[in-house]
């Protein structure tokens, strides 16, 4: 699969082949840091001063590189395809190497982008017997208290939420049997066929 780059994109990256390899390498590293930790204007200003080019050009160059990296990681482009796609930009070997090395890292960073669905993290449980309450004394009611820990979002912006829930022993058995049926569903031939064939 080849990456298609828009005209704007090509323009932004146009000045890179004109500078030396070391600088391009530097830009590549800046772009990676951007992905990992965000960026600051000082870095751009420093680079702009060294190269005697306007700050915006540096910024666009870095952003263009970053976009190139994320797109290639997103689509899991093979080496050959990638080299073909960037051929038109006239890039040097350096950049391609950086990209290929950090491929999987970029992918993992991308996958941590916020997901809207809360995900299971952990569950704690406790068996209690209610003996009395304000309105009734002398009770014997067994109940299970559960604390469900859910996680939402990526590592740095995690939103842990914990819910305290209760259930009685018969509902507990029902929950167990229903969820076991869910686990079995994963092992059916239908599921296996689909998992095998959609890659």
């Amino acid at each position, binding site marked *: 699969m080849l990456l298609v780059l828009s005209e704007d994109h090509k323009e932004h990256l146009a000045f890179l082949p004109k500078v030396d390899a070391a600088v391009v390498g530097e830009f590549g590293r800046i772009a990676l840091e951007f992905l990992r930790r965000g960026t600051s204007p000082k870095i751009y200003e420093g680079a702009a001063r060294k190269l005697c080019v306007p700050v915006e050009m540096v910024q666009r160059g870095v952003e263009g590189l970053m976009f190139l990296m*994320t797109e290639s*990681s*997103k*689509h*899991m482009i093979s080496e050959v395809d990638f080299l073909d796609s960037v051929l038109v930009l006239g890039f040097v070997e350096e950049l391609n190497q950086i990209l290929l090395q950090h491929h999987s890292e970029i*992918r993992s960073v*991308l*996958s941590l*982008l916020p997901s809207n*669905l*809360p*995900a*299971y993290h952990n*569950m*704690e*449980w406790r*068996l209690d017997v209610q003996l009395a*309450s*304000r*309105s*009734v*004394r*002398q*009770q014997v*009611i*067994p109940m*299970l*208290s*559960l604390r*469900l820990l*859910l996680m939402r979002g990526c590592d740095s912006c995690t939103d842990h939420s914990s*819910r*305290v*829930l*209760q*259930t*009685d*022993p018969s*509902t*507990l*058995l*029902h*929950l*167990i049997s*229903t*969820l*076991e049926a*869910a*686990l079995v*569903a*994963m092992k059916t031939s239908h*599921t296996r066929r*689909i*998992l095998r064939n*959609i*890659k």
Partner: protein
Amino acid sequence: MELSESVQRGLQSLADPSTFDQTSFPALVDVSFRSLLSSHGDPGVLDQPELKQVDQVLLKQSHTAATTFILEAVKQNADKSSVSSSLEELTFSAERIEIFCSTYQKHKKELQHLLASIGRQPPQINDVSWRLQYHMKNGQVDKVNEPFYMISLNTENKGTPEDINFTCTMEQLQDLVGKLKDAAKSVEKASQM
């Protein structure tokens, strides 16, 4: 059973044959139990024909005293003998004690159930539904190709249902089911003690 002054007074006038005669006594006992068990307050609950001759102020006092007494007895899970002895102390005749106690026995379980439902508790899980889905791609990453489960816990908190939704992988679901099974085993062990 400890009862306040006004409750004792109200019950004593209920025991008094000159205030409540043979027909009005059982009627008031019935009305007292009924007003506790019905789900809506009925302002006309004391408008029974049998209760017309009773002095209205004393009627109200006795009705309040009787309902308070009943609730206290149910709360303490009092058996027939302790109810009888309390009523005896309040000058009830044996016949009236018998009428009261038989009605008490009849409605005791229902009243206990009613009282037990009062109070705060965490949301109760009633049911669970699940879906198995295959995550192929999203806006940021292509070719994810991972199956995952979407679990929905149907909980109820004092009548208002609420759904708790979350996703989990197969390993996480196995972990969850394992923990629930541990809990079930401990319930079983506890019940055998």
